[in-house]
């Protein structure tokens, strides 16, 4: 008995190692490399920064290497308001898009979870269907829809809703359309998963206890779908903050999102250290709240 438990414990431990190993290999290590580059200075060289870490050069070289690292890039990030504005704009677009996604996605997920079971599979496929074409192609498709003589304007004029074509491209509206469209499945799927497993008899119990339907939604359905809401919001908000394609192809050039700033630093200016600094700050900005949230969730579960 004790034997089997110990073996199960061993198996459990090695099973846990797999995700951690994955994280170390594909997240922590690359992040450390980026962090290191962000502490370097630009150079006209290959790679385009110094110092370069050379493990074979011995201890003295290592000391010199460490001495050469500096926080100059981070000082620059703070000094130049451009970066701050980019971060704020990214957060704003991500926040607004996520709210729109939640407001649009919730009724869709709710409806999917409530229709007869034989329709649910079909609806799921329909939600996932856009993934079968490339993300880039879908955003380009939006360009053709939103351009001056595009489908949207043609339709609006034909239906006499507007007299002359409107400007869609290069506006924030276009960015929101592109982002909301692209991330829709990421919001709907976790919400659907949470709503679908909810016990129907809970709604009957609420009605039985004198709760009208609309109120049952606020008192029972919504709180019980909270894990789905949290997952959907995180799944959308985090990548949208770093979104590049939609703002670049659909948005205007006046105010950049942080992903665009990063792209400019990296490809246009070939300033790898500055780009790495931008990336490292972005990551901290996103990871810290998530970790705090998770910590709280875990505590709540234990405390309960």
């Amino acid at each position: 008995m004790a034997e089997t438990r110990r073996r199960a414990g061993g198996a459990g431990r090695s099973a846990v190692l797999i995700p951690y190993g994955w994280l170390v290999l594909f997240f922590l290590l690359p992040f450390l490399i980026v962090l290191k580059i962000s502490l370097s200075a630009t150079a006209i060289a290959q790679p385009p920064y110094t110092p370069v870490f050379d493990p074979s050069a011995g201890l003295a070289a290592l000391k010199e290497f460490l001495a050469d690292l500096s926080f100059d890039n981070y000082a620059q990030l703070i000094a130049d308001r451009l970066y701050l504005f980019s971060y704020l704009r990214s957060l704003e677009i991500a926040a607004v898009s996520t709210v729109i996604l939640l407001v649009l996605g919730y009724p869709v997920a709710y409806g999917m979870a409530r229709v007869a079971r034989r329709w649910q599979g079909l609806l799921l496929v329909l939600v996932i269907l856009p993934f079968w074409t490339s993300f880039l192609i879908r955003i380009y498709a939006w360009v053709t829809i939103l351009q001056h003589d595009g489908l949207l304007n043609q339709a609006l004029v034909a239906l006499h809703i507007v007299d002359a074509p409107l400007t869609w491209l290069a506006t924030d509206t276009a960015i929101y359309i592109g982002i909301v469209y692209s991330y829709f499945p990421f919001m709907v799927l976790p919400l659907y998963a949470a709503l679908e497993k909810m016990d129907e008899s809970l709604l009957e119990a609420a009605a039985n206890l004198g709760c009208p339907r609309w109120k049952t939604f606020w008192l029972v359905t919504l709180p019980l779908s909270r894990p789905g809401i949290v997952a959907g919001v995180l799944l959308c908000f985090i990548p949208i903050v770093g979104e590049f394609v939609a703002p670049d192809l659909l948005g205007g050039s006046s105010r950049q999102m942080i992903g665009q700033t990063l792209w400019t630093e990296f490809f246009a200016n070939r300033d790898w250290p500055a780009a790495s600094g931008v990336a490292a700050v972005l990551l901290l900005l996103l990871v810290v709240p998530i970790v705090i949230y998770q910590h709280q969730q875990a505590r709540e579960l234990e405390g309960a």
Partner: protein
Amino acid sequence: MADEVEIRQETDRGGAKLGFAPWADPAARPLVRFDAVTKRFGETRAVDALSLDIFPGEFFALLGPSGCGKSTLLRLLAGFEAPSEGRVLLDGTAIDAVPPHRRPVNMMFQNYALFPHLTVEGNVAFGLKQEGRPRAEIAARVAEMLALVKLAPLARRKPHELSGGQRQRVALARSLVKRPRVLLLDEPLAALDKQLRGETQFELMELQARLGTTFVIVTHDQEEAMTVAHRMGVMDRGRIVQVGTPAEVYEQPNSRYVASFVGDVNLIEGRLAAVGPSGLLIDSTVGAKLATNQRVEADVGATVWVTLRPEKLRVATAPPAANENCVSGHVAEIAYLGNVSLYKVRLDNGFMMKAQLPNLTRVVERPIGTNERVWLSWTPDAGVVLTG
């Protein structure tokens, strides 16, 4: 609360003998009336032209096999289903137009349906909050209800931190705290082990007697129905086939279906041979002539069935004096059940009869062993003659 609760003295459920028998009083007004109610799901008739009256303060049990429409009947009363035909009346008024959340009927669900995101307290308070009661009153009534079901120390727990029995109590408290006119219980004890189920049955009876609330309980455990209920209704495929006190249903079943569903029974087929002033004489398929002191709506020559409960048979190792109401065979099997022993006797023509004897002493060796020849006999008032 104490002064609102009318303490009813009689808690005996055996029959109408203790005075509480509104169903026998033509002037009594039923609290719940199903008036020729039919509920169809596609082709299935889950409830089929069913009429039933339930009286204020009654503890009514619905008994029947799985799928016979018990839950549907409760759901019709709670308003989760609308009748396809007929009406449901509460206190003499049709309530078909009243939505579920406005009905003064609370239900304890088969799976409890506790809100997982609320504490025990939150679950019990939920219904009172919907009524918009003042905070202080809600707190007081919740505390009182939790004390009643002995859950006060667990008030802050979430449902997933409770045992099955504790969850069942929360569900009960939650459905009672609103002081409903009718409490519906859908197999409330099905998830409990036998011991706990027995205890809870008595607690339910006590609670019902103290509160005076009308309880309608659904169960497919006939012992449970007989234990708790004033009256029980036996259902078969959407219809109520017999309604009566447990004693009436057990001792006077009106059909072979009821006789064999409620309790253990020997069913003997026969032909009505003679109708005399003191009873009937029946030629049975087990060889013996059966005499009963019953009357029956049938002509001589008609096929009838005699039901005999196993505990009403005498088992003897020598032939009794009379040769009516007596059959003979060999003991095929003996089941020792602790308080009683069940004898399965194979008659000479192969028919199996069950007889039950109380174990009066602790002697393990039985006076009658397997394969021994025995005579089973009974008095003329032991059997019930049925025509269907």
